């Protein structure tokens, strides 16, 4: 019985830690990052990454917009596939206008996600380009886009990643337009996309 109680305690502690981690991440990193408007604009930086379309991905890429940029990773059971499925739905809703929106999926896990591997992964949705590069360049890109991510160790010796999970929209000149939250209401998303593509 003592062991049982201990197990339950440990599970309760694990769930408590999840909430504590979330709060810590928010107050220690994400909130200050989002409020720090003193630096460069979203997406501006000297990162040089590679796209699965064979093109480099730099701040210049955004100037051939409008674009939608999402940061994720392939060892992601739920949020990243769901976001890709959402993007496919948005494209479907947009119809031919979807061709005017270039979508980029940038990995926060460059050690495991190569450009080729990402290309196949995002290739599930038409026209989405997978983006990877060196750890240092990904770090620069994360800073430029105000993206939070960090490794979380797992008991089998592997790791998962906590990461910002919104889609960032940029207009045709590469100026930050608006974010789309995870699982945001479809009508609101379509209103944003229509404004972006109509503008």
């Amino acid at each position, binding site marked *: 019985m003592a062991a*049982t109680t201990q*197990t*339950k305690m*440990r*599970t*309760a502690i*694990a*769930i408590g*830690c*999840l*909430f504590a*981690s*979330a*709060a810590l*991440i*928010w*107050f220690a990193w*994400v*909130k200050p990052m989002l409020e720090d408007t003193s630096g460069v604009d979203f997406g501006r930086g000297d990162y040089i990454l590679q796209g699965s379309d064979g093109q480099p991905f730099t701040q210049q890429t955004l100037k051939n917009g409008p674009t939608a940029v999402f940061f994720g990773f*392939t*060892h*992601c*059971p*739920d*949020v990243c*596939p*769901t976001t*890709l*499925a*959402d993007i*496919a*739905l948005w494209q*479907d*809703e947009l119809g031919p206008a979807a061709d005017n929106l270039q979508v980029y999926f940038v990995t926060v896990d460059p050690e495991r996600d190569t450009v080729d*591997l*990402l290309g*196949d*992964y995002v*290739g*599930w949705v038409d026209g989405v380009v997978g983006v990877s590069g060196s750890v240092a360049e990904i770090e620069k890109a994360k800073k430029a886009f105000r993206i*939070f991510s960090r490794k*979380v160790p*797992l*008991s*089998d010796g*592997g790791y*998962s990643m*906590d*990461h*910002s*999970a*919104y889609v960032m929209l940029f207009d045709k000149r590469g100026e930050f337009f608006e*974010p789309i*939250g*995870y*699982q945001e*209401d*479809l*009508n609101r998303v379509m209103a944003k996309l229509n404004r972006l593509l109509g503008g």
Partner: protein
Amino acid sequence: MFRPFGLPKVKPMKTKMKLLAALVALGAPAMADDMAPVTQDTLTLTDGYAYATLPNQPVAGGFLTIANGGEADDHLVAAASDIAGVTQIHAMMMDGGVMVMRELADGLPLPAGETVVLQSGGLHLMFMQLNGPLVAGETVAVTLRFENAGEVAIDLPIRKKMAGGMDHSATGGH
């Protein structure tokens, strides 16, 4: 703002309600991707599913609902599947746009009289080191180990990955 959600969705369910739910379930047309309810000891397992994987996706989530109709607490201690080198139990939440995930190395409590839902966006079984893709229409065989109820084998139907969450008004429209 700090707005945690998605974890863990626990709601009490009285025996009468469960009977009602079972009757409703019996009356509902059986869908091809529905899991037949599994009962063992005081636990009833329903609504199990997984999603088809994307190309090169090395991990996948498994979901189900576990109702503990007994008067004693139980505990989901571990899960295993032949499709994965490692299967873990994870808790996930979205926090201010950041996805945060933690392994529940000591499992998941199943309090007496309550129902715990493992679903997209929250608690899930985490299949890692997948041996191959998860294909829509097939099933994933999973063995769950409970502290009191012992081992339970279930088959999670694999669903096509659909856009998540939203009530899609245009489902029939395009």
